């Protein structure tokens, strides 16, 4: 017997040693995206198809740049959590499943940071 309450044991320390964190961070990123997506997609729809210098001008605006960077980081986090669930549901071969989970986690981290860094480069350097 431990001296912990049932709730304290569940919070963050379930059988998977991560408790409800996956569920919770997915909701947090969902709430962020519900706000950020409209703010991101309007300038993005305007910029899409325009020549390079006009696109750069749009994303040199601090508001567009901050929204785009925050949106991209939230998107790739949310995408990683979502794809993880899809893989866990449908891919049963252990090696393939683990391989895909590693690929999705590392790939989304890399792409998310690269995309957000690119927005910063456009805003500051290009």
């Amino acid at each position: 017997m431990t001296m912990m309450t049932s709730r304290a044991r569940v919070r963050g320390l379930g059988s998977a040693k991560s408790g409800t964190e996956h569920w919770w961070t997915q909701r947090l990123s969902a709430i962020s995206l519900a706000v950020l997506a409209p703010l991101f997609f309007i300038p993005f729809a305007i910029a899409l198809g325009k020549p390079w210098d006009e696109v750069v001008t749009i994303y040199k605006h601090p508001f567009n740049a901050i929204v785009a960077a925050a949106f991209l980081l939230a998107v790739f986090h949310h995408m990683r959590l979502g794809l993880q669930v899809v893989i866990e549901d449908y891919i049963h071969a252990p090696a393939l499943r683990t391989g895909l989970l590693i690929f999705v986690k590392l790939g989304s981290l890399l792409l998310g940071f690269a995309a957000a860094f690119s927005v910063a480069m456009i805003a500051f350097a290009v």
Partner: protein
Amino acid sequence: MSQTEHGAAVNRGNRPLSPHLQVYKPQITSVMSIFHRVTGVGNSIGAILVAIWFISAAIGAGPFDTVNGLLTSWVGHLILFGFALSVCYHLCNGIRHLLWDAGYGFELDQVKTTGIVAVSAAGLMFLGLMIVGWMN
């Protein structure tokens, strides 16, 4: 004999499998749930394209023109069209999911109403996005 995910053999005998998706009549609840997952995976492909677009713009005008040329080709437009639809649906139905998470809207009639509202809102959002995209 079939295998569990850990590779251990399990004797399932001749017992029938439980009924699965294809035996049920499609309903607004199940169809919208399936589409939420499908559009989620679709959005991942779109997100990768958006990332490539930003990365190419950061590298310079040359690489950007290549990516931009692909995205503004007819195949590119078709993909962007699908991506926009997919994002609008996932966003509107996602808000419906967040309401469920907060404990609201579990009655059957509410589930149907919010479903119709989410699809309609997604349609309007898609039209708005297309207008913004085409006008500029």
